[in-house]
């Protein structure tokens, strides 16, 4: 008899890809998806099912991670507690610029509720927290796969909230696996992005020719991973036992992309595909010392220009981390996978993602979808 896997955050950036992988797994009897209750619940369930196949083992239930017992009705709660073998807690507020209180509420308190629920599951084999490599904050150099003390500083309150969620999870006394994902850029074959994040918003403005410069220091790299690759890794992790605490970097690690290469690849593709870029009229953004970028930021702030303020807000979620070059160790992630992570050809993936985003006009997700699931 296979496991029952409870998934929170299924309609997030990685959720649909993860469900697709889980539903392909023979070792899983049921995938129970907790979707936030609300007026659009039926529509969201419909949209989710429409993307997946087969769906006979998929069960959607209404709840909310920030509520006691995940907001489940008593009967549903008890049934799920009896059955759940694995809890994948992926629900999170991933808006880097969100107020710290909002981030804490969803990312820390939501994790607390998910852990409380998991503790009452007698058949629990694994609590898998989907976290982020961003918890390293402003650390530089090699980042190891273990729980670390609080870094000297975080780049934004999102990072702190996820670091606190990890600490909470590690001390829960459960069999815990923490999967720290680097930036999930999109599907390697289709470029599909289920939720545009900071890097996508930055791309969107860059394509409009509104990003004149990108701050970087020597060794600035961007650690990208295809969303489907991250999903495959998590699906495999579900089948692997964990004893106490295991931290894994699902990341490109040593193979992270030098920032200049990423900018060059992006610009080269835009010159092939996007009017304005194609005719060579839009100049590539400059990769500059952070002090120059700060001068530009100050200038924009002094001007009070609203559009550039939006551009810098989006870029401000992505750029600051570039000033703290680091390499994520992937030893444990690779041990679980059974070899080097099957990273996609990043150039091809980036090109697909740009095409996908342009095809969608980088349409923003609805506000309700942006908070948490």
């Amino acid at each position, binding site marked *: 008899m296979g496991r029952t896997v409870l998934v929170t955050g299924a309609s997030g950036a990685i959720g649909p890809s993860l469900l697709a992988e889980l539903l392909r797994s023979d070792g899983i009897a049921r995938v129970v998806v907790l979707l936030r209750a609300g007026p659009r619940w039926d529509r969201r369930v419909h949209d989710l099912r429409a993307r997946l196949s087969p769906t006979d083992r998929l069960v959607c239930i209404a709840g909310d991670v920030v509520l006691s017992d995940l907001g489940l009705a008593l009967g549903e709660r008890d049934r799920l507690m009896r059955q759940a073998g694995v809890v994948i807690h992926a629900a999170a507020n991933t808006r880097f610029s969100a107020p710290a209180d909002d981030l804490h509420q969803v990312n820390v308190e939501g994790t607390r509720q998910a852990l409380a629920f998991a503790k009452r599951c007698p058949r629990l084999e694994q609590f898998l927290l989907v976290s982020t490599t961003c918890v390293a904050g402003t650390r530089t150099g090699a980042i190891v796969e273990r729980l670390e003390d609080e870094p000297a500083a975080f780049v934004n309150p999102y990072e702190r909230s996820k670091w606190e969620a990890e600490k909470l999870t590690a001390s829960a006394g459960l069999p815990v696996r923490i999967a720290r994902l680097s930036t999930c850029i999109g599907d390697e074959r289709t470029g599909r992005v289920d939720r545009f994040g900071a890097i996508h918003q930055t791309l969107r403005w860059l394509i409009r020719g509104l990003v*004149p410069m990108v701050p970087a220091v020597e060794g600035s790299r961007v650690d990208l991973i295809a969303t489907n690759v991250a999903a495959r890794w998590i699906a495999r992790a579900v089948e692997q036992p964990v004893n106490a605490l295991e931290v894994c970097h699902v990341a490109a690690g040593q193979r992270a992309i030098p920032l200049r290469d990423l900018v060059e690849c992006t610009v080269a593709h835009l010159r092939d595909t996007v009017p304005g870029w194609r005719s060579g009229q839009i*100049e590539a953004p400059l990769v*500059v010392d952070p002090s120059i970028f700060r*001068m530009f930021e*100050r200038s924009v702030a002094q001007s009070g220009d609203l559009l550039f303020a939006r551009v810098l807000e989006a870029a401000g979620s992505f750029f600051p981390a570039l000033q703290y070059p680091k390499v994520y160790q992937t030893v444990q992630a690779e041990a679980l996978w059974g070899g080097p992570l099957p990273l996609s050809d990043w150039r091809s993936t980036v090109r697909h993602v740009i095409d996908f985003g342009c095809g969608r006009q980088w349409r923003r997700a609805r506000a309700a979808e942006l908070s948490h699931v």
Partner: protein
Amino acid sequence: MTPNPDDVGLSGVAGVLPVRQWDLTELAAAGLLSSSADALAAFGFERAYICDATCQPREMALDAARAAMSDAGLQPHEVDLLVWASARPESQVCAGATQTDAGTVMDGFRYSSAWLQHALDLHNADVMAVAQQGCATMFAALRTARAILLAEPGRRHALCVGVDVLPPGAPREILYNVVSDAACAVVVSRGCTTEKWLGYRQISRGYYWDPAACGPEIVAAYFPTAKAAIDQLLLDHRLRPGDIDAVVATGVNRSSWDILMRLVGIPEERLFRALPAFGHTITSDSFLYLEELRRLGQIQRGSRLLLFTYGFGSSWCGLLLEH
């Protein structure tokens, strides 16, 4: 040293500002600014010079032209070519004096260049005009004048004159720059080693042809394209940023110059901006500063000067001179 007849230089330079100054508070009170006075002050602006009944554009053009000719030691009959250079279409013609429909059509032919030739008695000069280069229009005029002097050896001196004045009551802020009225004139001479022409590089991007529709895109394109133009100019002449002895500023917002100097790698102390802030004068900024640089005499002969400007259209232009 005998000058090489193929050397072209700027033998005379002059700029003229109106007498009437408006400080930022006055401009804001008159509703002529879109940003706050504080924000514009933070960008280094202090005032705008605005024409009024006592100071007409034509008078400024005459004053600038006479001063430049005097600087070059030229008499009117020695000018072989007159190039009128204005960014604004209204400046290309003298204001009409007739009220009839036929007169309205004919008024479009009351060319400023022809009027100036007549007013200055430049009876040996051919006359032409350069337009549609925005704030880079005077750069285009100099480039055109130099090309003609080199192509036609019988001609020796070209007088380029530009004046741009905004209509009465017009907003005085364009893309975070406080805009002044002004005129300037430059004599371009063959066989001249003063401000000797070393090179020129222009990048024109018609993609940004409509400034009202793509203001933010222009602001974003400014720095990468400016750097590209300057980098290419230096590369053309096998120069490094440190080989530039002085960068002659424009009157656009100070922080944009601070950023550009860092981007191109020229030490910031080499930015020449030694005049009380006069705002951005469309075509005259660089030449108001160049006139002051020549007057001060603090730059050694043989120094390399870089003039750079951006003009709506859009064009990014770098001019390299040897002082």
